[in-house]
């Protein structure tokens, strides 16, 4: 019963993706050209796509991370400043350390102090972006060699970021669907107290996934800074909401307990194709925003009709055999 239902979601998303590519490709053949796909469609979505992976884990536990864009910018700016004064290696280390510490702060506050993730990460959204603004006095920070290489290297015409993305996507998909940790995320999302009483180390699991999110933001910081050669504190303000859009479009319930990494990955490319495809078709950016909103609304409506059933099934599954069997799809 559950298998055809579950597969339908992702297949439906895939069909939408293929249909979008086909429609845009027919209207404008240049769009499906390999170089264009790699240099525009793929390259522009990599940071958002990478952030969406760990955030899917967070959303499955019933949390959210609104601070992702701020962490990325904070890490990129700190790295840029430090590399200018103390050299490349220090810059790289600082970039990674910042992401790790920011994630740790989020995770600690959410898990140990029991403050809702929405509030915590809303506050740290201001905090991290604000520190980035403070230390630069609002000025731009420039890229350094390592970051430039990360952002602009191409392998066989494909941006380096794509390979990192694929690696991350595989790791996170396996993490969610094949490991005990993955299963425990669903348990936490469905009922945190029940998960705690059944012996899961809820606090440390939560801290870990926020740290993961922070570290992935650090990774994105290299690509982003390299790609744009200079960044200001306020360039990533709406990134968090786009990442949430991707995750929700991918079928992960914002209420937690229901979700799937494959959906997130397909949704990432739907948003990528929408963003760049509509540009190719000379559709103004504002209509693109509307279309993106409409796509989100339609998917929300579909999920809200089917979601209730999915959640019930998921609960039954967890009750029956101790964990959802996403692995078997």
């Amino acid at each position: 019963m559950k298998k055809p239902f579950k597969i339908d979601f992702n297949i439906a998303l895939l069909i939408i993706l293929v249909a979008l590519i086909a429609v845009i490709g027919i209207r404008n053949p240049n769009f499906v050209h390999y170089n264009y796909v790699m240099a525009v469609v793929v390259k522009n979505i990599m940071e958002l796509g990478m952030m969406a992976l760990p955030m899917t884990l967070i959303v499955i536990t019933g949390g959210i991370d609104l601070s992702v864009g701020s962490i990325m910018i904070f890490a990129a700016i700190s790295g840029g400043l430090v590399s200018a004064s103390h050299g490349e290696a220090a810059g790289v280390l600082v970039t990674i350390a910042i992401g790790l510490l920011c994630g740790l702060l989020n995770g600690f506050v959410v898990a140990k102090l029991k403050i809702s993730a929405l509030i915590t990460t809303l506050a740290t959204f201001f905090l991290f972006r604000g520190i980035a603004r403070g230390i630069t006095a609002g000025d731009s920070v420039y890229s350094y060699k390592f970051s430039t290489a990360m952002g602009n290297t191409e392998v066989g015409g494909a941006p380096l970021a794509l390979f990192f993305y694929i690696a991350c996507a595989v790791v996170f998909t396996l993490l969610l669907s094949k490991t005990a940790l993955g299963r425990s995320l669903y348990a936490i999302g469905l009922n945190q107290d029940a998960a705690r009483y059944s012996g899961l180390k809820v606090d440390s699991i939560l801290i870990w996934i926020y740290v993961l999110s922070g570290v992935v933001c650090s990774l994105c910081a290299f690509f982003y800074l390299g790609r744009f050669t200079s960044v200001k504190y306020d360039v990533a303000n709406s990134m968090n909401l786009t990442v949430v859009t991707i995750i929700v479009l991918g079928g992960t319930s914002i209420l937690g307990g229901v979700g799937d990494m494959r959906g997130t990955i397909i949704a990432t490319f739907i948003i990528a194709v929408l963003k760049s495809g509509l540009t190719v078709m000379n559709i103004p950016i504002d209509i693109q925003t509307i279309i993106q909103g409409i796509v989100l609304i339609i998917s929300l409506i579909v999920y809200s009709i089917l979601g209730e059933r999915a959640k019930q099934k998921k609960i039954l599954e967890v009750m029956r055999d101790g964990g959802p069997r996403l692995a078997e799809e």
Partner: protein
Amino acid sequence: MGETNLTRADGRKAAFRKLLSTEFYLLLFLVAILVVMRVAAPGFYSMNVIMTVLNYFSYLLIAAIGMNLIILTSNIDVAAGAIISVVAIVIAFVGKTGAPIGVFMPVGMLTGFLLSLINGLFITRLKIPAIVATLATTQLFIGFLPLVVEGSIYDLPATFTWLSFKAKLFGFLPASVIFAAVITVGFMLFMRYSQFSKKIYAVGNNQHAATLSGINVNKVMVAAFMIAGPLYGIAGTIIATAGQRVTTTMANGFEFSIIAAVVLGGTSISGGSGRIIGTVLGALILSIISPAMNYIGLSSDWSDAVMGAIILLAVIVSSVSQLTKKKGTIAEVTT
């Protein structure tokens, strides 16, 4: 908290205890800032600075009161900034036609009302979590604006800016401050005495219990959005009329400041607990920080960081005091 079924004496006691927790500390913090400013930077107390702070405070507070109602019902509205942007453009359109002074505020309120109603219906009819529902409508509202307006509407007539430049009580007190004061007092009375406000708290505390006790949960939630909408409209009108040019992105991102004011004011994001007075203090603290930092010689570039740190500290302090009070239970439900 159980404001619905307490007797009046209990209610007063509970209110007093609550006053001692969040609002009291906020007030202390506010007084501390004001004293420090008195000592460190007397220039801060010039008429000019006070009026600037008050103006920002008034429209932040008006919008935050609306947001407070929505959050009390355990929803959230991330479309507030987008709605205010739309309101600003709509009344600028009207202003360009040379419409009389009295038209702008009602048009703004109506626009806010309609857009917020869409959000409310969307959330309740389709049972979509408020954060994603309003995220989706944000994209619609923001995307729609530039289609009708190219960048900005400018050279607006004096009738348009009348509200911000000319409408002053006793020649110095801006109209926005009067609006904020009237609305605040009105809503304090409303929350204190009306039957309906009890329903708002009941719905926020426990939806199922509210349903079982005969409250139409959906109606209450939509009503919260319907009340918030016109308040956004008033805030939008004040923001828009502050200049002769209205841009399409005027208030994008403002929702974060509004939510921050509400949360800083001690309203629980899971609903059911929080008071208008807290929101007033939260909004006031947020409005003072940036200019205050400027006057003690800190660059205002640090204001975002300080704001984030204050919000984080405020929720941590209130959560930790809860955790120690009732060890072992989930603290998320209460403040």
